[in-house]
C-alpha cells in the first residue's frame, strides 16, 4: 500500500489532493475496479453477520441501503438504531460494557478518543483507503486523518455552515447585497429590525450543546485560528477574538436574535424562516430543505449564501468508525461496508450519499459527488450546488483539533461559557478567558467539572 510519509515516518495528515493522487498512482486506477470497491472479494471471506449501530435519522433508509449491500453477495448486517439525542453517551456506555460493534456512526469530535480508548480501529493500509482520501476535498481530510497520519474514520455525511436568508425581506429593507461578514449581518439585522420588517431577524441553533459549532463558525468567519496544529488554543492571541464575542452578545442582547434561541431546536428555527419570523438563519446547508419543504408563506423566498466573506466557514461532518474486532476477515467485510456507505458502491457511484442527498440535502466531502449527474438530479433545484461545492473546497475548514481525544471535554463546556455571555452575565473578555481555561484544562487532562 502506498503512503506518503513525513520525515518521521508517519503518514502525512494534511497532504494536498494532488499529492494524494500522485501517491495513489496505480492504486487509483485499480480503485476503479470492483475488487477494491465495495462488494469486492474481501467481504466474501467472512460468512458471519456484521453489527452496525446508527442514530435514528431515517432508520428504514439505513436498513434498505445496508440490505442492498448484503444483496450483492455480502454478509448480513444487524442494524441497530438509537436516538440521536444522547447517542454519544449511549454508544460509549455500550462499548465500555463490552459491546462489539463492527461499524457505527459517530460524531467527529469523538473519533480520536475512540481510537485511543481501543473502541475503534485505525484504517491505515486498508485496500482503497488512500484512494478514498485522494478523492476527498483537501479541506475535509483533517477530519478523517489525524496529525500523525492515521486514518481514523470515513465520512457518514458532511455539511457546511451557510447563511439562509429571506430575499424578499432584504429587498424590503433596501439591503442590496447579501450580508457575509459578522458586521454585515449585524448591520442588516439592525436595519430589518428598525425598519419594522421583522422583529428578530437572526436565528441560530444556540442551545448549549451546539454553541461549540457556532464558536468555530464565527471565529472562522473573522479569519481567526482557534487551535494551532498541535491542538493548543490560540484564539485568545488574536485581537479580533474579543470582537467576535462582542458581536455575539450584541446580537442577543439587542434583540436581533429572539430570546428563545437559547432553547429552540432547528425544526422551530426552520419554521421561523418559513413563516417569515426571521430573515437570517445560520446552520448547516441542508436546512434549506427543511425550510422549503415546510411550505410556509416565506419558504420560497429563502435562499442560501456563503458566510465569512474572504475568510471561512465551518465544515462539519459526522463519521463512520470501525469497531475493534480482531478477526481479519470480519474487519475486511466491515471495511467493505464502510467504503460502500462512506464513499462509493461497487459501480463507483455515490449510491448511499445520493440517497441522503435526496432525503435531506446531506452532502459528501468529495468533489466528484457534486459533479455526479445522479447527485445533481437528487438535489432540489433551489440548491446552488456549485456554491456548496466551492464552499467545501476553498471556503471552509474542519478545525482538526475537533477530533482530538480531549476535545469532547472542551466541547461539553462551551455552552456553559457562551450562554452567560449571551445573557449578559459575562463580558466578552471573561468569555475568552474562560474558553481558554476550559481548552487548556481539557487538553492538559486536568480533571474538573
Amino acid at each position, binding site marked *: 500500500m502506498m503512503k506518503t510519509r513525513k520525515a518521521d515516518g508517519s503518514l502525512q495528515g494534511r497532504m494536498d489532493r494532488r499529492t494524494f493522487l500522485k501517491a495513489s498512482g496505480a492504486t487509483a486506477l485499480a480503485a476503479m475496479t470492483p475488487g477494491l470497491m465495495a462488494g469486492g472479494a474481501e467481504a466474501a471471506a467472512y460468512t458471519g453477520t456484521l453489527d452496525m449501530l446508527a442514530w435514528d435519522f431515517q432508520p428504514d433508509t439505513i436498513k434498505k441501503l445496508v440490505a442492498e449491500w448484503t444483496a450483492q453477495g455480502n454478509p448480513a448486517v444487524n442494524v441497530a438504531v438509537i436516538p440521536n439525542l*444522547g447517542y*454519544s*453517551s*449511549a454508544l*460509549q*456506555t455500550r*462499548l*465500555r*460494557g463490552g459491546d462489539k460493534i463492527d461499524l457505527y456512526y459517530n460524531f467527529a469530535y469523538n473519533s480520536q*478518543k475512540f481510537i485511543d*480508548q*481501543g*473502541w475503534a480501529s485505525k484504517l491505515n493500509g486498508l485496500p482503497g483507503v488512500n484512494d478514498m482520501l485522494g478523492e476527498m476535498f483537501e479541506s475535509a481530510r483533517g477530519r478523517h486523518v489525524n496529525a500523525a497520519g492515521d486514518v481514523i474514520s470515513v465520512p457518514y455525511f458532511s455539511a457546511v455552515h451557510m447563511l439562509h436568508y429571506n430575499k424578499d425581506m432584504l429587498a424590503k429593507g433596501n439591503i442590496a447585497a447579501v450580508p457575509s461578514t459578522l458586521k454585515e449581518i449585524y448591520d442588516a439585522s439592525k436595519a430589518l429590525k428598525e425598519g419594522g420588517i421583522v422583529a428578530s431577524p437572526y436565528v441560530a441553533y444556540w*442551545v*448549549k*450543546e451546539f454553541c461549540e459549532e457556532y464558536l468555530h463558525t464565527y471565529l472562522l468567519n473573522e479569519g481567526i485560528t482557534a487551535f494551532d496544529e498541535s491542538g493548543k488554543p490560540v484564539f485568545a492571541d488574536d485581537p479580533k477574538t474579543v470582537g467576535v464575542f462582542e458581536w455575539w452578545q450584541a446580537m442577543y442582547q439587542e434583540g436581533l436574535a*429572539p*430570546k*428563545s*434561541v*437559547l*432553547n429552540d431546536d432547528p425544526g*422551530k428555527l426552520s419554521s*421561523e424562516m418559513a413563516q417569515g*419570523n426571521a430573515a437570517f438563519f445560520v446552520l448547516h446547508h441542508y436546512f434549506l430543505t427543511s425550510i422549503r419543504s415546510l411550505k410556509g408563506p416565506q419558504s420560497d423566498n429563502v435562499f442560501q449564501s456563503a458566510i465569512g466573506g474572504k475568510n471561512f466557514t465551518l465544515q462539519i461532518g459526522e463519521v463512520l468508525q470501525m469497531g475493534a474486532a480482531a478477526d481479519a476477515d470480519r474487519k475486511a467485510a466491515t471495511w467493505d461496508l464502510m467504503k460502500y456507505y462512506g464513499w462509493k458502491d461497487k459501480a463507483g457511484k455515490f449510491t448511499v450519499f445520493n440517497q441522503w442527498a435526496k432525503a435531506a440535502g446531506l452532502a459528501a466531502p468529495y468533489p466528484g459527488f457534486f459533479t455526479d449527474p445522479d447527485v445533481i438530479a437528487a438535489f432540489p433545484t433551489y440548491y446552488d450546488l456549485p456554491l456548496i461545492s466551492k464552499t467545501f473546497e476553498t471556503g471552509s475548514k474542519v478545525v482538526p483539533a475537533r477530533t482530538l481525544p480531549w476535545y*469532547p*471535554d472542551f466541547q*461539553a463546556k462551551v*455552552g*456553559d461559557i457562551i*450562554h*452567560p455571555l*449571551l*445573557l449578559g*452575565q459575562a463580558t466578552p473578555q471573561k468569555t475568552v478567558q474562560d474558553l481558554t481555561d476550559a481548552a487548556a484544562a481539557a487538553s492538559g487532562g486536568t*480533571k*474538573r*467539572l
Partner: protein
Amino acid sequence: MTSPALSNELSRADQWFGFRLTVPAAVILIVLLALPTGLTILYSLHDVPANGASLGPFVGFENFSIVLSSPVFWRSATVTLLFSIGFVTLSTAIGLAMAILLNQKFIGRGLARALLIIPWATPWLVIGILWKWFADGSVGGLNAVLIALGITSDYHDFLADPNTALPVTILAAVWRQASFAGILLLAGLQTLPDELGEAAALDGAGVWQRFLHITLPWLRPALATVAVLNVIYAFLQFDVIFAMTQGGPGDATQVLSLLIYRQLFAVTQIGLGSALAVILGLVALVGGLITVKLLYRGHVQ
C-alpha cells in the same frame, strides 16, 4: 394467644420458606442496586479510564475534593435544592388537594379519578417534550392561558429566561408527580371512617378543624410515603429538565443529575462523575430521612 414455644416452632418452620420467598427479590436488589452502588463508590475513589477496562489508579478522596471545591458543583447543588423544594412542596400540596376533592361525592367522580392517572402514566421524557412545546414563547399554550387570565399581556420565552426556566421545569415535573401523590393520598383518604368526621361535626368542629385534626393526622403515614418518594424523585430528576432545557439557559436548570450525566457519559470522567453520584445519593438519602423525621415529629397516636 399463641404460646411462645408454638410461635418459635412456627417461625422455624417458616424460616426456610420465607427465605426462599425473599431470594428472588434479594438477588434482583443485589444485582440492580447493591452492586451498582458498590461499584459507583469504588469508581469514585479511582481515576477510572474512559473505556472502563480497569479501575485505574486509586486516588482516595481526590475526586470528592475536586467536586466539593468546584463552583460549578455548588451552583448545581443550589439549583437542585431549589428545584427539590418547589417540586416536593407543590406536588405534595396539589396531590393532597386533588385527593380531597376526588374523595367528595359529585357527578363524574369516576371519570375524574381515572383522569388523575393520565399524567402519572405518561413517561417523564414525554412530559418534558410536551411542556417544552406548551411553554414555548411563540407557539406555546402557556402564554395563551396566562394572557387569557390577564396575568401577562405579552408572550414570554419562559425557557430562555434564567429567571423563569427553573419554575417552569418545576411546574412540568409537578404536573406528573402531583397525580401520583393524589392517587396515594386518595387511597389513604378512603380508609378514613366517615363516622370520625361526622362525630367531629356534631361536636361543632368546622371544615378546617376537621381537616387539621382528623384528616391530616390520619393521612400522616401516606403523606410520609409521598413526601419521601417526592424528595427522592426531586433529587434524581433528569428527564424532564433534559428534554426541556438541557440544563440551560446558562446553568439556570443544571441540576446535579444532569451534571452527573455529562461527567459520566459525555466527558467520560468516570471517577469524577461517580463522586458526584455518591454525593447526590447521600443528599437524597439524608433528605428522605429528614422528611420522615419531620413528618413523624411530635406524632401522637
